[in-house]
């Protein structure tokens, strides 16, 4: 008999609304001028494997209630995961006490009223109900594959569901739930490795064994790497590598980041910063995206055209940033109070038509990059990032992949990089380890700057 999946655990929307209304009632009784309640509930499970066997296998269930009060130009937040009435009263008191301890802020805006939200459906019952046995059987197939090929597999198979709801004393109420399944695998052979990963609202959105086979084939091709001199190379970045680089750009599109003068777009809005083949939107409603369709202030997320033909055109705005800039809020604010304002969280790059084979076939000499690792910002204005290649770096010569190559360190401005994109693949949902998931294409880029080489 299978053990139960986590599907029974989430509260109904009616329950969430009841909790919100109860907290708002208690806040009013406690003397809060305005109050806002966020509820986040999660049930998650993750099966982790290494050395061709499961070594960690976990599940969690939790619900948190976060309360913001605002009275006379003062606001603060208190969060608890205790749901009894005394604990909720305690959290409200904590929020009021924190708020009262600060100077009055005349810029504090009233909470928004009732909003209209677009319905988004990303809850798949089969995924919510996935059991540890089902994950274990899938993992065993992957480990068996590795064993048959003389390789060693490591990875995760995760599944879960989350919901979030918020309401405030001005009548706003919003709720959203989604499921999530994720599989990633690293295959190791004679010191060489390769990797594949996917995630989706539905466990049917990927085939774990196919991902493992892809990683396995690549790991085999990665053995016996050749050492090349560092320098500038044409690179073909697979979508995961693109994602982990361009993920560092997202906060630069926040109006607050520009006002704080920490955005690389200061002085660059409206200019030809990127190549004409670069167009970027923020779009939580895109069919390949996941995520909550309202922001931390309760406003519905808007679609925003951030970059059009290489020209940064628009920013995203929280309520406060919008007031300062005489714009309309775009539904990208973080929960208040915070010092960061807002950010686009659902980036969608426009893709092209070139597939990976065409990119390779058109390359006289270059490198095919599976993924990047440990990326950090070296120069915040030129947006120079450093990091390593990982899990499969290959030399392309005369239109063919010829050999594996030892991993490189890069130091590369992504502003410059996005001016030198020669070919774009179709945009796909990509997932990596350095940035949140986005819809991005593979890219062929000239003059990518590798500065040092490591020992494997």
């Amino acid at each position, binding site marked *: 008999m299978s053990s139960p999946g986590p599907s029974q655990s989430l509260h109904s929307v009616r329950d969430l609304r009841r909790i919100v209304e109860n907290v708002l009632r208690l806040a009013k009784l406690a003397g809060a001028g305005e109050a806002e309640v966020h509820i986040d509930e999660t049930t998650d499970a*993750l099966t982790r494997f290494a050395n061709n066997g499961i070594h*960690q296998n976990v599940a969690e269930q939790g619900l948190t209630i976060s309360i913001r009060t605002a009275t006379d130009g003062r606001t603060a937040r208190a*969060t608890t995961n205790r749901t009894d009435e005394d604990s909720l009263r305690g959290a409200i008191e904590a929020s009021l006490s*924190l708020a009262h301890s600060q100077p009055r802020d005349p810029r504090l805006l009233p909470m928004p009223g009732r909003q209209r939200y677009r319905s988004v459906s990303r809850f798949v019952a089969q995924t919510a109900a996935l059991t540890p046995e089902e994950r274990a059987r899938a993992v065993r197939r992957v480990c068996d594959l590795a064993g048959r090929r003389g390789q060693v597999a*490591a990875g995760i198979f995760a599944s879960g569901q989350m919901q979030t709801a918020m309401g405030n004393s001005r009548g706003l109420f919003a709720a959203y739930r989604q499921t999530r399944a994720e599989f990633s695998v690293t295959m190791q052979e004679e010191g060489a490795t390769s990797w594949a990963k996917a995630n989706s609202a539905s466990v049917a959105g990927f085939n774990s064994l196919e991902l493992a086979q892809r990683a396995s084939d690549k790991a085999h091709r990665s053995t016996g790497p050749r050492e090349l001199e560092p320098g500038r190379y044409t690179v073909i970045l697979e979508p995961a590598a693109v994602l982990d680089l361009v993920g560092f750009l997202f906060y630069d599109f926040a109006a607050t980041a520009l006002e*704080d003068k920490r955005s690389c777009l200061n002085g660059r809005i409206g200019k030809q910063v990127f190549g004409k083949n670069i167009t970027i939107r923020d779009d939580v409603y895109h069919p390949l995206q996941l995520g909550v369709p309202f922001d931390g202030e309760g406003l519905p997320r808007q679609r925003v055209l951030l970059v059009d033909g290489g020209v940064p055109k628009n920013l995203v705005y929280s309520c406060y940033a919008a007031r300062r800039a005489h714009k309309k809020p775009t539904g990208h604010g973080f929960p208040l109070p*915070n010092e960061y304002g807002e950010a686009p969280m659902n980036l969608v790059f426009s893709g092209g038509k070139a597939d990976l084979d065409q990119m390779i076939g058109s390359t006289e000499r270059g490198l095919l990059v599976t993924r990047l690792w440990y990326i950090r910002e070296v120069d915040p204005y030129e947006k120079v990032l*450093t990091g390593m290649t990982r899990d499969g770096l290959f030399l392309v010569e005369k239109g063919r992949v010829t050999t594996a190559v030892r991993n490189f360190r890069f130091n590369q401005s992504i502003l410059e990089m996005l001016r030198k994109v020669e070919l774009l693949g179709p945009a796909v949902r990509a997932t990596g380890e350095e940035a949140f998931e986005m819809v991005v294409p593979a890219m062929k880029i000239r003059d990518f700057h590798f500065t040092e*080489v490591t020992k494997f």
Partner: protein
Amino acid sequence: MWDLCTHALDAVRLRRATYADVRVMHTRQRDLTTKNGQVGTLAQSETIGIGIRVVANGAWGFASTDRLTREGVAACATQAVAIAKASALAKRADVVLAPEEAYVDSWQSPLRKDPFEMPLEKQLEHLLAVDAEMRRVKGVTLTETGMQFRKIDQWFASSIGSRIHQRKVQSGCGIAATSFQSDEIQKRSYPNSFGGQYALQGYELIESLDLLRHAPRVAEEAVALHSAAQCPERTGTLILAGDQLGLQIHESIGHPIELDRVLGQEANFAGTSFLTLDQLNRLKYASEIVNVVADARLEHGPGLGTFAYDDEGVPAQCTDIIKDGQFRGYLSNRETAHLIGLSRSSGTMRTESWNRLPIIRMTNVSLLPGTWRLDDLVADTDEAILMETNRSWSIDDRRYQFQFSTEIGWEIKGGKKTRMFKNPSYSGITTEFWKSCDAICSRDHWTLWGTPNCGKGQPMQTMGTGHGAAPARFCNVKIGSAFAKS
């Protein structure tokens, strides 16, 4: 809480778990920040729940819940055993744990001023005063300050009979000034970047750091960096200040010695390690003056890696990692200790919260002090660059090749600190770098730095680690490659 722990242990025993440990954790946190003279974040949070880890059918299972009723805990226990039995469908071998004694104990980290008992107004006033002091400096375009306090109560019980309560109070604070001019963003931070300094102390930590006194210097240096010379690109001598050296230790010694990485258990995410098992007691890791320990005991200092017992109920220990330059030890747990010939875990299993599985973690991985006074070290150096305060850090997934950049550099010429450099960076291969260390400053210059944000594991866990370091000198280091143009 002990009733819930006992109930959980009884429940898993009934379902034929052969080993179990249970953690109830209650964490309270307060976050205060300011930006440009205004209050930024002002928040308090608490989280409480139970995590149950079991071995059944020879395999591990873990489940956690915030439903702290007898029914909630029983359901969680049932789930943990069911997960362990599912793990057994794809296990490699039965779990075997190194023996450990049962402990019944209660421990609290020492503190003089409980930050949660102090008026919040006073804490905010202090930050706003520091913020204002930085904004006095012309050319500063962004000022940020912050404090964070955390109080963690933990009740640990295991099926071998341990019952351990620990209370830890952590404090942290930091300030930063940013200056945007002429297409360049420069930043200075104090007492460290990325949030500042953190320790297992109360509000006395904040008072000891004297933020107000350092605020003008931080702001002035942020502005002055714009007119400083670019750090040259060359191979030469490098002196690292203690704040940067702490992170160098973290990345190029602390992570490679984690035995779970060495054994491939992190291969899919955090990576593996060049310190394969055959290197133990054989590898020359560093020069002979380099001695590194992993020390979780209070006598090492109030670090973020200080505790009385780890999250497997193993007492805090001090382990030699590098002794006179030779590689001597790993960070292990009860499951892996036997693989390196130990009869006992080195006590490094730690968990972020009740809903996370304990995993092998750094404790306080520290470079022991040397003999030099900093002034003497500078005077002894003909030509070098002194680098302070981390700006970026990156290392490959086996921990060979690293690159760091810092907020500020200083030219050392003819035994004197002469001029400021902007955008300093250096890079190298771990063992080559540590073998080039030829001078380490004395205990007078030694600080136990707190790194509050070490990420590892899937699901991701963030953990605080400690790194004692004093300024040290390294020879033949590649400098400036992060900004190399070709």
